[in-house]
């Protein structure tokens, strides 16, 4: 038994009584140096790094619902850096590095678990793409290999090697692939940020943005108006709607993305396994539940309803991969709302409005970027708009200059 449990047991009252994770609600001030719209993982991470590394604490994080209640709550907690482009790989590799130390950085266990991620190739075309991803990853120091059927059998003995007439030809084995308690990431950042003076305002919705001479000066909320020095927009699933309030359009189309979870069973699957040809990925949580995810819904929508069609195809494919799962019981099906860009890379950095910074377009892979996004967005804010090198390729202007960062092949159904 760890020492800390003994400590808990010896206290007469609730042991964390004097060390709450989140402060009670407070009044809104009239002015903040920085207003962050969106109290998801990205928003509170940005606030955390601003406070901890840049000494900027007159910060308000405004969240229309509850802390981490959007895609931070709905994602399937896959952490990986096996992307396709050099820009993508460098960025996500930096994120994985931060993730690895997050529990200690927060003094709060986010249950970071390095399980490895295995992506299956069923066609020659996928094998080619995987080889390239493995090579790009290795080039930047990532642990990714193209492996053959024999190694796949050893890693996942329970896998059906010939699902749905699509024999498994090879796999992309990404040792750095990991998972974590996704909510805890947001809580850890919120805790660290609020302890340093950042204000987190839940149930506080931004209804309008004040702009004077092309520069943001404040926001309106359901709890009153606030003036501010700058704004960071981090509202995944609502990015173009919020941008419209600030008076500009974003090259984003918004789709629902569904996921589902089964009842818990005793552990039998360590790695995260995905197949883009089958539009399915599978992992077993530390509670023993199986989590399934797939591709986005095929039509744009701002709604988190579930559909039967997706459940039917996704679970059929899960059974193709692991036939014995036919006997498992599904407990819950849900959806998140994803802002997709045409090159499957995010939009970070400057916007057409001065001092209004963007953290958007995360599609289905925002969770795994939480730490590095927060860190670089904080640098951007603290420097008054000097874009850090790591995120420069993800500027919104890339769509005007045709400098897209194409990650299409590296994201489909492997999030």
């Amino acid at each position, binding site marked *: 038994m760890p020492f800390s*449990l003994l400590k808990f047991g010896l206290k007469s009252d609730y042991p964390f009584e004097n060390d709450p994770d989140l402060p009670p609600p407070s009044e809104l001030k009239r002015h903040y140096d920085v207003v962050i719209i969106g109290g998801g993982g990205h928003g509170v991470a940005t606030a955390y790094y601003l406070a901890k590394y840049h000494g900027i604490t007159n910060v308000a994080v405004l969240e229309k619902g509850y802390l981490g209640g959007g895609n931070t709550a709905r994602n399937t907690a896959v952490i990986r850096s096996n992307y396709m482009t050099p820009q993508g790989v460098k960025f996500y590799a930096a994120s994985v590095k931060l993730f690895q130390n997050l529990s200690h950085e927060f003094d709060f*266990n986010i249950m970071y678990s390095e399980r490895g991620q295995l992506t299956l190739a069923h066609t020659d075309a996928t094998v080619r793409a995987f080889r390239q991803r493995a090579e790009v990853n290795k080039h930047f120091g990532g642990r990714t290999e193209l492996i053959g059927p024999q190694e796949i059998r050893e890693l996942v003995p329970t896998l059906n090697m010939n699902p749905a007439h699509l024999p498994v030809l090879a796999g992309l084995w990404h040792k750095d692939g990991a998972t974590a308690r996704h909510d805890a990431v947001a809580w850890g950042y919120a805790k660290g940020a609020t302890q340093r003076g950042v204000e987190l305002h839940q149930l506080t919705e931004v209804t309008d943005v004040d702009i004077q001479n092309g520069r943001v000066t404040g926001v309106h909320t359901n709890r009153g108006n606030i003036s501010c020095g700058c704004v960071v927009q981090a509202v995944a699933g609502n990015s173009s709607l919020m941008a419209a309030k600030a008076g500009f359009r974003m090259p984003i189309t918004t789709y629902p993305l569904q996921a589902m979870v089964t009842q818990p069973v005793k552990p039998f699957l360590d790695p995260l396994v995905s197949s883009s040809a089958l539009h399915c990925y599978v992992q077993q949580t530390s509670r023993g539940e199986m989590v399934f995810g797939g591709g986005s819904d095929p039509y744009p929508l701002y709604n988190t309803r579930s559909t039967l069609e997706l459940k039917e195809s996704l679970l059929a494919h899960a059974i193709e991969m692991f036939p014995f799962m036919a006997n498992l019981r599904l407990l819950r099906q849900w959806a998140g709302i994803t802002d997709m860009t045409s090159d499957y890379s995010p939009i970070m950095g400057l916007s057409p409005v001065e001092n209004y910074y963007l953290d958007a377009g995360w599609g289905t892979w925002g969770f795994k970027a939480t730490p590095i996004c927060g860190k670089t967005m904080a640098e951007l804010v603290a420097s008054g708009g000097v874009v850090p090198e790591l995120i420069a390729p993800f500027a919104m202007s890339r769509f005007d200059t045709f400098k897209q960062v194409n990650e299409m092949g590296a994201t489909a159904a492997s999030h």
Partner: protein
Amino acid sequence: MMTRLPAPAGLFINRDKPIDFSYEGRRLAGFEGDTVASALMANNEALMSRSFKYHRPRGPLTMAGQDANTLMQVGGEPNVLADQLPLTPGVAVTGQNYNGSLQHDRSSLLGWFGRFMPVGFYYRAFYKIPFLRSFKTWPLWEPMIRKMAGLGVLDLAFTPEYYDKCFLFHDVVVVGAGPAGLMAALTAAHGGASVLLVDEQPQLGGSLTYHRFDIDGVEADKLRADLVAQVEANNNIQVLTKAVCNAWFTDNFLPVIQGKRMYKVRAKECIVASGAFEQHVVFRNNDLPGVMMASAASRLIKQYGVAPGQRAICLTGNDDGYMTALDLQEAGIEVAAVVDMRAEPEQTDVLAALQSRGIAHYAGHTVYEALPSAGNRGIRGAELRAITGQGKVASQGKSIDCVVVCMSSGYMPVYQLLCQAGGQLNYHDGSAAFTLTNLPKHLHIAGSVNGRHALSAVLADGERAGRVALHQLGLSEKVPSDVFCSRQVNFDWPIFSHPKGKDFVDFDEDLQAKDIINATRMGYRDIQLVKRFSTVGMGPSQGRHSALATARLVAKATGRTVTETGVTTARPPFAPEKLAHSAGRMFDPYRRTRMHQRHVELGAQMMPAGNWQRPAYYGTTSQRQACIRDEAWHVRHQVGVIDVSTLGGIELRGPDAVEFLERMYTFGFAKQPVGKTRYAVMTNEHGVVVDDGVACRLSDQHFYVTATTSGVEGVYRNMMKWNAQWRLNVDIANVTSAFAAVNVAGPLAREVLLDMGADIDLSPEAFPYLGFRECTLAGMPARLLRVGFVGELGYEIHVPSRFGEALWDAVMGAGKTLGIKPFGVEAQRLLRLEKGHIIVGQDTDGMSHPGELSLTWALNYKKPFFVGRRSVDILMAQPQTRQLVGFTLPANSLKPEEGHLVLQGDDISGNVTSCEFSPTLDAIIGMAFVGIDQAAVGSKLPIRVDGGKRIFAEVVAMPFFDPDNQRQAL
């Protein structure tokens, strides 16, 4: 020893059909109609599971399949609800998630360590060692914790069984066949609607099968017999029992699961009469076997003829608890007391009934603690205390011996389907009652889910809902008015925290009252955050019994009302469902060409290409390379044939066909003569090449356009999308599967066609390269395309797909004396590479524009527009950063693989897209994206191959073979 109550108790069981089964290795007996749980109760086996965290003994809670206490392992199947699992002969059932035996679970020690594990403790533990900050301990703890987690064990050798699906269409679907549902179904059916009535239980009647509605206990049976007879006699009503409507999807799309089938039901109108879940009372040891819902006790008696125990207490917050007491006493069970948390019952006659039967009555009291028997495996009594305020009790109480506590604090509507439909659940703080609002227009509710609890109101409400549905269907003019019901059933604060805890709010997750409160003290004030931090409601029963108590506790702790606090969202499915139900027959379509059988006969190794199966090469896997070389050699020196039926085919017809083609593809087609083919490149709005093919002009207003095998679906969709805006007068048809096709290629190709017998002149003058003809070939109507993908004289022959096999046979027959040989996709890849032809998708990526691919010749700048034109113009005006080039390496060099990186200094500048050994050229040839300043012919390309070694290839001009294109023009 099985004991049963005499009939009429035991409505569901057939006493003439005893069934043997085993539990934890012990042989026991039950009856047909029993569930495993009811049979166990009949055998005095109340211990059914161990709890998730503390491994506390648990017995049945609802007897309705709505709690996690009866989860068991049945063979290789984990997490089966024993109170829903019909008893079958010989079934072997065991407990799960214990260490030792179900009776003696060593892990139950964890219960004693509960204080060391306060809510959320794992966020504060298991990751570090004091004074050794950098050392990470979670990787060491996690495997141990994972083993503790999980419930049952999945049989990894299980092979899926047959499950299927069935579509149903009805005017009205009624979910729930209790009194409200029966009335609704009958009303709708009488009004002329076709009705589907769905219920989970084996028999119709819902609460009429177990609940006592009157003091004499006669009304329910009479009413049930009458209503069920009417339903059974009504031809407009289809009944599905033992079936659960497991979700509500948009527009009344309802998955109903029965046995191994999922009915996918479309309902014009849906009436949910799903009833209400009885709610428990929070007191110490309220989780032990023997403590159960009042309705569970009634179900045991009425449905299964089983006495829940010999001495019972009824703890209640409404008059229904009195009825349960009457049920118990009538069944010969001693009722030690009725403990009413209220000051007095709503109806005075129930109190009189108790008094006349000599049952002790305690008003304004609660059970403060259930007194455990040995090992917590049951209870031996209960301590009563007077209630002195909200959640407060007197300091002294009274112990009463009993082995059963039946509890009811009220009901929560079965709101899951309704919330999935966007309905809003409102709680009224004054009356502690619920309402559901904001339902979609064609979804209605009736009965106790609608807050009507008196039987007469429930029946009237069912009739009302049926009439509303009829009105919506246009089958009735009248809009009925709402049904009034004043009955109150919910006690507003049935939570009595105990300083020693074990006062459970959530049985699934072993959460006690203080855990919920402590979560709020940690700052997790929102109900959703409470859920996520404490895991309340995340267990197998998804908050059915914890949501209300949690909302009340959170509301009080954060100074809000229950309405403001709300409950967490209900998501599908309603009840846990097997993955097999969603998967059904595992319909995974894949496609075979009309010549598939011939390939198999010739020993082809098939490979997937999209949904299609295509021959990769002909021969054994051990001879792969030799086969491919031989096939290629035949094409270069004699003649070969490849099945290209998978190639996409799209027909464009109409006055605007040319204009449409001009807009969809980059080339010019306006001046394309009839009888000619033209290369067609498609770009997307980003100026990226997304597909290519050949456009054949059959007449002025008729084109046949080919597309890539994997691209055609997208191309077709894209065409439909654009023309939805353009509204050009053109028919667009994807005719891919209407045609079968082969490519006959090689110096002797013409001889093959001549031998087959064509009714057109095949001479090079009459039918030159890039020509297109319609003709009769070997008696088949055929379209001939003279194309040169593999770089030889070649004819693509497209025939209606019914002639596919005949075409193959005719070609093979005609070519026999010419030495014809079939070739597969692998040889084709090699041959086209030698010719420098790209494959879109292999030699292009999501960014490649025509300039990078040297396809500028296929752009027509004279026409005003094509999709992607604006982007192509911008891209062409920018300095190009990379180029697709050809490269060669000596035959004995290490061979780069497709996907290997091209370097420039230490940076990545590109990647190999295609690479093969060419026997014709005796060299390794390939294509690669390279940095623009590496693209000049003669430059040396550093390529990093397997093992990290760099090799240097030479950039050469393409095509590698027959640069003057003499062979294909023969």
